[in-house]
């Protein structure tokens, strides 16, 4: 044992040296370490991406006696260079909660009873087939997740879109990054960021747009702080609607009224043009100007339909459009002093300053989410600060594979692994690779997420299979959708790792393998695909979500499309999926490369990863011979959009006089179904609360911990007050984290969404408060 202990200390010595080297020499790699670490004799270490957020930190999971017992940051992973956040360090404990689902359950006479998993899979196949035969192909649906592995999402799409012929495939990433997708598609014609995390090592100014990175992306925030410490001229500007831990660390916080980020972004563009800070060469060569429809609605009614229409406009037309957005006019609307708007514009406009803008849910969960994404791109495009190291408009994702599984595999109703269902060539490619008749793939999208749950409520959908997500906590206007799921002739299948409010409404529960209990891949925010091997065994009869779908597909007669063996199905699925992305614009690394590295960025061309797209110095897909090539659009240009300010779907009034803003906390992952089973994380933040401004609390007559009733037009909830806690809202706003299933704040929220992206706005609705 003495020898083992020495070796363990030696491992710590090596890790420490790697961490030091990583801090001094960003990007440094020690390829030989993994094999060395295997020989420690105490704990064997294997690489994996972290289970939780979209940052995609590389971790090393320590295994002893078949159990995951430790986690450390992977110094070979350029994302986090050996660092983790508190969720990452405690992540393996989430595997071992006492109430882990280990057996399948079927509801019989109103009660859930354990059954062998094969019996449950038989029942699912039977119900799915019966429902399809009786009510049509669009009466069955699959609702997945940005926490699905890439193979999970791929086989779900193949089964439902390719074999069953319905486009009823959606994922919870619709709730978190659909506006980012439509923002990219409308501005660039291609999804996902052009930059990468290495931008952090080059930027002088960081602007966080409604983004509490200190809690939501703590490792990237640490990299920003390290950059500021290393260099003398680095600033962090926190542009927000409430004071957070990001505000505490920022050089300046600028508070705006909810929804008015649209106006402020336009005012920044106005100032850039007024001061002649436009990069004219870049704009003339690489940008075109467009406008779309206005007064586009909020989608609060069933069957809401909206299709935007782009019309070209000139730079002069764009200047005229911006005349409504002088800093002085926007100050009145947004509450942001004109001098602060001019200051922001001066940062973007200074050609000697490299600016990276970060955003996440604040801009995406927004009834004009697509527009505000467009507007931030407008700013970067006007000054030509894009696709070069340090100059990056950077949309962060919240889930580990929102990009990899949902955006790249295309597990949304309108998408295919390559392209969209509406495009004949894309359907032909999918049919060819999937070995199904092309007629199987319906050219018409069906239901986006909110409409999918409305269809379940109406009875248009009667069978739904939910995997790796917890919609009975996360759907806005939740009461309607829970009541819908509970209706008599609905059949709900839920695959999960722990009991949740969603398993409570299930007719069948399948126990799922979690994270490193299966092999898989995630794709993070910076186009990085990250493979992980099966490191430990799943408990009981728990089975990977991929294999659950394969089992059902075979029962439905699709053995030919799902022929794989359990020993190598992930490799086979990956290599089939990779065919969809062949070519320099999206080439994915082969399986053999993925297994060796701590993530590989696509496009992966001739053995090289692409760090900055649209720039021929880094991107082999650029072919126009110019300084930039925005090859996603047919005119080979990035599009600047004239998008106006329009108000929120619901704003405070005399009856409901507060804004309600919802979100997350550092310690908990989304609905808390995993992190609340980790004692350290649970004890750090054991229950949810409502943040109030101290003066609002005083007027209401409540002190810390006293209970406050929050009432909206849809529901009400009573919960303890937090005053001057980690976050402090402005007067007239309250904030509630959604991680705690004991306080279902989404019974209060509104199911309004961006008409282009169909992503709901969880940040803005009107409530009133009462002392309980």
């Amino acid at each position, binding site marked *: 044992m003495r020898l083992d*202990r*020495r070796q363990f*200390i*030696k491992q*710590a*010595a*090596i890790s*420490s*040296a*790697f*961490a*030091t*080297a990583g801090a*001094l*020499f960003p*990007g*440094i*790699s*020690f*390829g*030989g*370490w993994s094999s*060395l670490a295997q020989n420690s004799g105490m704990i064997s270490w294997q690489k994996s991406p972290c289970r939780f957020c979209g940052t995609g930190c590389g971790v090393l999971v320590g295994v002893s006696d078949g159990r995951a017992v430790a986690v450390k940051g992977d110094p070979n992973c350029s994302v986090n260079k050996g660092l983790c956040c508190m969720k990452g360090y405690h992540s393996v404990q989430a595997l071992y909660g006492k109430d882990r689902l280990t057996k399948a359950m079927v509801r019989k006479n109103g009660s859930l009873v354990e059954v062998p998993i094969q019996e449950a899979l038989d029942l699912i196949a039977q119900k799915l087939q019966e429902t399809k035969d009786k009510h049509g192909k669009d009466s069955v649906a699959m609702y997945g997740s940005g926490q699905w592995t890439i193979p999970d999402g791929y086989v779900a799409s193949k089964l439902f879109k390719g074999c069953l012929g319905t486009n009823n495939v959606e994922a919870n990433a619709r709730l978190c990054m659909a506006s980012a997708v439509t923002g990219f598609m409308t501005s660039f014609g291609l999804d996902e960021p052009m930059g990468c995390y290495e931008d952090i090592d080059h930027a002088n100014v960081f602007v966080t747009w409604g983004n509490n990175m200190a809690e939501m992306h703590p490792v990237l925030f640490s990299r920003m702080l390290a950059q500021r410490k290393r260099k003398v001229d680095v600033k962090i500007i926190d542009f927000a609607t409430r004071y957070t831990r990001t505000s505490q660390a920022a050089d300046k916080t600028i508070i705006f009224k909810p929804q008015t980020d649209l106006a402020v972004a336009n005012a920044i563009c106005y100032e850039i043009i007024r001061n002649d800070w436009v990069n004219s060469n870049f704009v003339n060569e690489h940008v075109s100007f467009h406008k779309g429809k206005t007064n586009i609605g909020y989608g609060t009614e069933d069957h809401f339909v909206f299709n935007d229409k782009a019309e070209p406009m000139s730079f002069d037309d764009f200047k005229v459009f911006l005349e409504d957005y002088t800093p002085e006019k926007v100050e009145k609307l947004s509450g942001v002093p004109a001098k602060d708007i001019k200051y922001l514009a001066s940062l973007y406009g200074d050609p000697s300053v490299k600016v990276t803008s970060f955003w996440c849910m604040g801009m995406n969960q927004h009834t004009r989410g697509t527009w505000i994404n467009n507007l931030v791109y407008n700013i970067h495009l006007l000054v030509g600060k894009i696709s070069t190291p340090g100059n990056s408009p950077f949309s962060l994702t919240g889930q580990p594979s929102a990009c990899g599984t949902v955006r790249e595999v295309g597990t949304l109703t309108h998408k295919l692994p390559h392209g969209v269902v509406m495009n004949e060539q894309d359907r032909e490619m999918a049919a060819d690779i999937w070995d199904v008749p092309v007629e199987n793939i319906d050219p018409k999208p069906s239901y986006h997420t909110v409409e999918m749950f409305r269809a379940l409520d109406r009875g248009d959908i009667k069978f739904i299979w939910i995997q790796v997500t917890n919609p009975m906590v996360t759907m806005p206007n939740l009461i309607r959708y829970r009541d819908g799921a509970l209706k008599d002739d609905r059949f709900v299948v839920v695959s999960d790792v722990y009991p949740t409010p969603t398993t409570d409404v299930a007719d069948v529960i399948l126990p799922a393998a979690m994270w490193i209990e299966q092999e898989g891949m995630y794709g993070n925010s910076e186009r990085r695909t990250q493979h992980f091997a099966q490191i430990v065994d799943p408990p009981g009869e728990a089975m990977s979500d991929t294999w659950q779908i394969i089992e059902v597909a075979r029962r439905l007669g699709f053995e030919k499309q799902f022929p794989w063996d359990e020993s190598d199905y992930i490799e086979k699925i990956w290599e089939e999926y990779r065919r969809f992305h062949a070519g320099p614009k999206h080439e994915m690394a082969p399986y053999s490369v993925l297994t060796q590295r701590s993530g590989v960025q696509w496009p992966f061309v001739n053995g090289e990863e692409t760090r900055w797209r649209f720039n021929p110095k880094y991107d082999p897909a650029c072919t126009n011979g110019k300084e930039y090539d925005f090859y996603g659009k047919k005119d080979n240009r990035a599009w600047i959009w004239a998008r106006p300010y329009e108000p929120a779907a619901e704003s405070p009034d005399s009856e409901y006089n507060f804004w309600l803003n919802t979100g997350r906390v550092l310690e908990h992952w989304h609905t808390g179904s995993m992190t609340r089973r980790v004692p350290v994380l649970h004890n750090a933040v054991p229950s949810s609360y409502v943040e109030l401004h101290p003066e609002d609390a005083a007027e209401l007559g409540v002190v810390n911990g006293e209970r406050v009733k929050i009432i909206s037009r849809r529901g009400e909830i009573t919960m303890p007050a937090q005053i001057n806690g980690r976050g402090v809202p402005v007067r007239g706003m309250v904030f509630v984290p959604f991680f705690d299933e004991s306080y279902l704040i989404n019974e209060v929220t509104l199911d309004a969404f961006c008409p282009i992206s169909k992503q709901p706005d969880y940040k803005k609705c009107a409530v009133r408060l009462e002392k309980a």
Partner: protein
Amino acid sequence: MWYSGVYTEWYSSKNNKKETMPIFSYLAMPREGARENLCTELSNLEYCQIIPAENKEIVVLVTDTPDEDIERSLQLKLKNLTSLQSLSLAFGYDEQD
């Protein structure tokens, strides 16, 4: 006990003979063009383990000596390596303390 200073600071502060020696890790930087030589020379030293970086001119050196005399002797040998430009301590852990 964890150290962030250099080895000599630690060593000069110790008066008693130690039963268990600390393990140290360092970042070793070669002189220009001498990376391969440095790796060879360090590999040839007893009680040394090296992990060269794949993409930078940096070598991680881990030392694990059995007693103070050998530690002192190793330090001397390291000091005299012609291929070595600098050595920075990254980690030191003394189980006895």
